[in-house]
């Protein structure tokens, strides 16, 4: 049994396997990138789009990096890939969290404006300009 196992291991071509896995991971990564872009194009509110973008794209980049990592020829290079992905993750998480705050404020602002508009029916463009100016001061 062990002999069979060793024979099997010897028969496997590791270069071929690592290339196969690279192709697999990178393709999966590309699929996630495409899915993220479709989400950014089709979702209907800013918060949803933010979700599609950060989650799918960073996962896609993670798969791509996993794929190229299998072709790395030194551990220093592997470390660099890990560092790049970690940095993208941290910066994307921070930026999208803060953008989410702004997007949420924006939606609240819109809702408030619509409420105000329903109450006093005749609205003109001058009205909306005034309200946005107020919004600027408020933020």
């Amino acid at each position, binding site marked *: 049994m062990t002999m069979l196992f060793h024979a099997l291991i010897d028969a496997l071509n590791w270069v071929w396997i690592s*290339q196969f896995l*690279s*192709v697999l991971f*990178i*393709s999966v*990564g*590309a699929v996630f*990138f*495409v899915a*993220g*872009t479709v989400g*950014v*194009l089709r979702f209907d509110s*800013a918060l949803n*789009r*933010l979700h599609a*973008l950060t989650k799918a*794209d*960073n996962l*896609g*980049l993670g798969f*791509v*990096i996993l794929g*190229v990592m299998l*072709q790395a020829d030194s551990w220093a*290079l592997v470390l*660099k*890939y890990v*560092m*790049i992905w970690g*940095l*993208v993750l941290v*910066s*994307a998480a*921070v*930026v*999208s969290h*803060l*953008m989410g*705050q*702004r*997007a949420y*404020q*924006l939606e609240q*602002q819109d809702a408030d404006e619509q409420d105000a508009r329903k109450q006093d029916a005749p609205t003109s463009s001058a009205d909306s300009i005034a309200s*946005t100016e107020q*919004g*600027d001061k408020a*933020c």
Partner: protein
Amino acid sequence: MNSFYMMIALILLVTMLLGLVRVMRGPSRVDRMLAAQLLGTSSVGILLLLALAFEQSALRDVALVFALLAAVSGLAFVRVWAAGVLAK
């Protein structure tokens, strides 16, 4: 193998092109800025793939700098650019 990397890089470039549609259409400014951030992530992918395809290790440093600095303009948007964020 190299042609595979190039093909995927091309696919990522096409996703960047589609992301630009969101930059153009908005509607809100958060959307535009976010779509620009998406382009940064895709660029990192393209750089890493082409660094492997053309065996140019310097491109990985470019990807590293992209990853570090992609956040700065987004943060400036969130923090500094006050007048008009809520304008439209």
